């Protein structure tokens, strides 16, 4: 149980959260979810997850802004962006703040699992 990693899903769509929770729980991860940036920030501090699955279009502010804020505070938590936005500029922007992966929805669940385990190994 010690090596059970905690993954936090931040996405405003309910069923996305359900999907990822179902998929990741089967892999033995602990999963917590959050639907907007207001509560995300607080939850990250309190729960200290190992990995963030972060969307961009969120109520309360862009996922990239949240990322920026975390980095500015010196928080180097592993982040994988999973988003509907596939614009190159956005990808580059997000990359500036150090992300493990940028995945565009709809993402294959197996690929998602791979990226997560890669990110957590490091």
């Amino acid at each position, binding site marked *: 149980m010690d090596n059970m990693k905690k993954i936090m899903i931040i996405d405003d*769509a309910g069923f996305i959260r359900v999907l990822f929770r179902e998929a990741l729980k089967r892999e033995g991860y602990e999963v917590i979810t959050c639907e907007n940036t207001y509560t995300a920030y607080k939850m990250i501090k309190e729960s200290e997850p190992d990995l963030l699955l972060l969307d961009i279009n969120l109520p309360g502010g862009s996922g990239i802004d949240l990322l920026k804020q975390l980095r500015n505070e010196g928080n180097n938590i592993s982040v994988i962006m999973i988003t*509907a*936005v*596939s614009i190159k500029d956005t990808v580059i922007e997000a990359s500036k703040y150090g992300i493990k992966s940028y995945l565009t929805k709809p993402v294959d*669940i197996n690929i998602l699992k791979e990226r997560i385990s890669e990110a957590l190994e490091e």
Partner: protein
Amino acid sequence: MKNKILTKIQYINRIHRIFIEKTDIKRVFRFLEEKTFPNVGIKRAAIVQTEDNYKFYYKYRINKNILKDIREQNYRNLNDWINGNTAKILHYGSKYLFVFESGENREWVYFEPLHLKEDYFGILILTADEKDISQDDHFIFFLLANHIAEIFYLDDNLKKAASLNRLNRKFLKHSKTATAFLDKNLHIVQTNILFRKIFKIRKKSILDICKYINRPLLENMISSPDSRVSFEFGGKNFEGRIVRARMKDNIKYLLLIDDVTEVIALKKRIWQNQKLRELGEISLRIAHEIRNPLQVILGFIQLLNEQEDPEKQKEYSNIIMNESRHLNGLIEDLLLYAKKVDINFEECIPSVIVEEVCNSLKERADNSNITINSDLKRFTFVLDIKRFREIVTNILSNAIEKLEEEGRKNSSIDIYLEKKTGIFILNISDNGSPISGENIERIFNPFFTTKDNGHGLGLSIVKNLVEAMNGKIEVKSRNGKTSFIMKFEKNDLQK
């Protein structure tokens, strides 16, 4: 004697007919010169203008002597000359025939005053100095003079009418407006080519315009001459106006029709382009809205393959189905949102429509213990009935759904409908939870939704519908009441 008169009268009739037929004064005078009356020869006839210039018509000059006489005697005008020289006045009915003797050469001048025209004084008919002119002959001259006067008058007007006609005809021919002249019974008296083309009228005959455009529509046009009335015919769109126009004899109305099919198509394209541009601007949102459900569908299908627990399998399948439906619904809403709203205005009673919508949703409201109170004033207004029903249904079901979810006791919806000068107001309010200030601003934005399963296009579509009918919609949320207030203005077709 009798025979003589008869012959002469017959002769006069013939001349009269010729005058009417020929309607050309020159020819008439030529005819007169060539023919002679028995016993009387008409030398010349002249139409004399008033004022000081003795302008003679058609180069027919008055006898030099008479003219000389006028000048020498210093008569200011013919009137004076006549008055000063009347030798004899013969009366025939209400008219006078003046007989003059003038100068050395006696000439009998018959002068018939022209009462028909202001510019013209009368007709002089000069005869040979034949003294035994009978009364019959005088009578004939009288008739003749009359006829000439009438012909002249007719001729003049016909010339004007002809030139006007020519102008009219040219204008009508080249005009891009289909024109029809109608009589008081709305029968077609005259049309231009374009009109015949549009309504595919082949023969130039008296036609009932009601065959092509229905009577209520025509009456609408007649009663509001300042506005254009839209209608469809043969798959094309037209705008028509009727103006009152009293032209020759029986023409009472002018019907003007413009083909606006292209204009409408263009407007539609512009609207759609605008909407597409807006959609382009919110394409990120669309990507988001479509890709999320897709992720859920594809993801759960993958999980389904690895899942052995039947309960879970069922759960996953349901989620897949729901998300598929949600996605389809979203695409439908998107299309609705982007589509140009077609509006067909009709006179209706808005309260009747609101009542119908309330009745259709009553059962659902009752099941959730929601009371619907309505205070609807009854009046007529010109609206698109179908669209108005859609608007009311949308707002009312939203309110019911919201109150259902919140599940409070004493949930109620109030509907007010009242008319003020030039507008009417529909207010649908619920006593559910308030909408935050931030959300109020965005509530009509596309894709904005506070529902879990919402697409966020419903209210944007409602707003489009309201604005397409010259209305405004706003939402207020205060003092425990959330209200959707719609104001509709009178449009052109209102009387």
